[in-house]
């Protein structure tokens, strides 16, 4: 099978859907000059010049424009440039887009995708390195997608563009050049469905986005020590595929949850809580979480490396969960 990058998979998903549905358009800052700052829209400005719009630096109006267009017959994808800037648009996302259908008694739909590159590891400093996905799991009204591979990006983005609800789509900025197999023929991946990225029998690691790759490297190392790790890539964190998690937990009895965003109040906290509420009797050890230290993301490479988790942290967490059994 051919291999393409995450950036190419993103552009392909959009171009295929835009060819079929004339109501899809892309709006955000600095999109057309280089096909997006990570090359995620390369080819689209030439193919659909009227449907990819460069905006002023006005994040509230950009997201609001997406909301208003989605209410009136269009299916916008809003590019937020960096996920960090989502803080500027919290009212438009949380109180408006995510609330409207409910607040108006089901009268409206919100076919809007808010697309944002998140994640650290590029020494981009405290204002261009954060991951905020857990906030959008905490507040109701949003579907939150956090894919890890070109194949998943393409299939899930196509689903997100076809969905009638608000979808937040976070892609890790270190993964845009990551290559992986993607078939030529069309496919979609349903939202919510998790994927077993590696089968194993001793420990379940529930993860997503960049940490999937760190977890897979840790699993290879652990295999050499005779420890079999099952890697569950959630892909969608809300609503999430509890059945897939449960099936694996029942098999292994040991759970590690790994994400790059802060451990405190993170997605792992909610997952751990739900797992112990529903599967307590299957657990042989306390759940171990892996996440960033509770500090802003620093600039200097050794500092950044100290703060965000990697394969070494997953390796140690797996050892810990087995030692405590």
């Amino acid at each position: 099978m051919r291999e393409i990058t995450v950036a190419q998979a993103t552009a392909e998903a959009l171009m295929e859907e835009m060819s079929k549905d004339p109501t899809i358009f892309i709006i955000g800052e600095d999109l057309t000059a280089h096909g997006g700052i990570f090359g995620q829209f390369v080819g689209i400005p030439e193919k659909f010049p009227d449907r990819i719009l460069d905006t002023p630096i006005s994040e509230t109006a950009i997201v609001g424009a997406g909301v208003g267009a989605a209410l009136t017959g269009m299916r916008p994808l809003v590019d937020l440039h960096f996920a960090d800037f989502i803080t500027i648009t919290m009212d438009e996302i949380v109180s408006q887009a995510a609330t409207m259908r409910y607040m108006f008694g089901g009268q409206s739909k919100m076919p809007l995708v808010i697309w944002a590159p998140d994640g650290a590891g590029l020494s981009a400093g405290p204002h261009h390195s954060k991951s905020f996905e857990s906030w959008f799991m905490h507040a109701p009204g949003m579907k939150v997608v956090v894919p890890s591979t070109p194949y998943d990006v393409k299939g899930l983005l196509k689903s997100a563009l076809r969905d009638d609800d608000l979808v937040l789509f976070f892609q890790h900025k270190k993964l845009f050049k990551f290559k992986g197999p993607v078939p030529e023929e069309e496919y979609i991946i349903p939202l919510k469905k998790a994927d077993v990225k590696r089968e194993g029998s001793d420990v379940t690691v529930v993860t997503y986005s960049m940490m999937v790759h760190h977890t897979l490297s840790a699993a290879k190392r652990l295999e050499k020590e005779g420890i079999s790790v099952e890697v569950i890539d959630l892909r969608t964190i809300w609503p999430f595929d509890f059945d897939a998690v449960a099936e694996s937990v029942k098999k292994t009895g040991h759970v590690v949850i790994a994400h790059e965003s802060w451990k405190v109040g993170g997605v792992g906290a909610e997952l751990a809580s739900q797992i112990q509420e529903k599967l307590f009797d299957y657990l042989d050890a306390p759940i171990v979480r892996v996440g960033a230290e509770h500090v802003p993301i620093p600039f200097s490479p050794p500092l950044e490396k100290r703060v965000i988790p990697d394969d070494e942290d997953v390796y140690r967490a797996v050892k810990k969960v087995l030692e405590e059994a």
Partner: protein
Amino acid sequence: MSDIDKSTAIKLYRTMVRIRVFETVTEKLFLEGKLPGFVHLYIGEEAIAAGVSASLRRDDYILSTHRGHGHTLAKGGDMKKMMAENYGKVTGYCKGKGGSMHIADFSIGMLGANGVVGGQFPISVGAGLSIKMRKTDQVVVAYFGDGAANRGTFHEALNMASIWKLPIIFVNEDNQYASTTRKVRTLSVEHVAQRACAYNVPGIRCDGNDVIAVYKAAKEAIERARRGEGPTLMSCQTYRLKGHFIGDPEKYRTHEEVEEFWKKEPIGRFEKIAFENGWLTEDEKKAIWEEYQKEAEEAVKFAEESPYPDPEEALKDVFVNPLE
């Protein structure tokens, strides 16, 4: 003599009376303890929604505020559904999930009243952009108060609407107070339309208690937008005759000040002109008030006889497709 025709004049009058009656009945119900929550009345500001809506089509869009009953009624809203929503009943516009501050009626282009002051500006840009991309000749009206003009969303939306020449009429209802704070303490200009030059859009100031003046100014702005010539910023000077919400202790203004403005309220002022022009007789006036009084009473009866939503309804309508 005024230069508008009788049928337009009566249309404007009827809309104002319909709003006034609905709001007066709502106030009474709230004071009797029948309505939960908070209600913000439009009494005194009716000329703006009436004057603007007279040139709107059913398929045009409006975005409204926490003081939004008048905007929806003027666009053709249903009194029964609105009153039922005020009561929190399942037959209300939003099945009781939104309440007075969040009325929407997508069947008449009413895209929602916003509880966040200034939250409507960015959304209006999206509706305007959608019209432009779909190549229709619809327009968008975004109503907002003098307080909302100080939100950053105002600046971002006006700039974006201007560069893309979007068909949006930003209608400022300058009622002199942002909640309890007098406008002169919070607004850098005398009136909001002065800010239009910063966005390179036409800025029109008009007497918001003169329904004919609002009608004429809005008509021109709406026609301009429909022709694809871009947005307009209108500032209508008015006065909020009631408190910020029903029950507001109103310590920030004097009784005398309010009394002075009651003398300038838009309905009585229009009636005087209507009588002079022969548009209206005392009997016709009486009949119009009675007609809307009856409509409002029927709306109250409908709301009172309607059931509250089943508590389980609280768990529905988050998603179109919940992926369960």
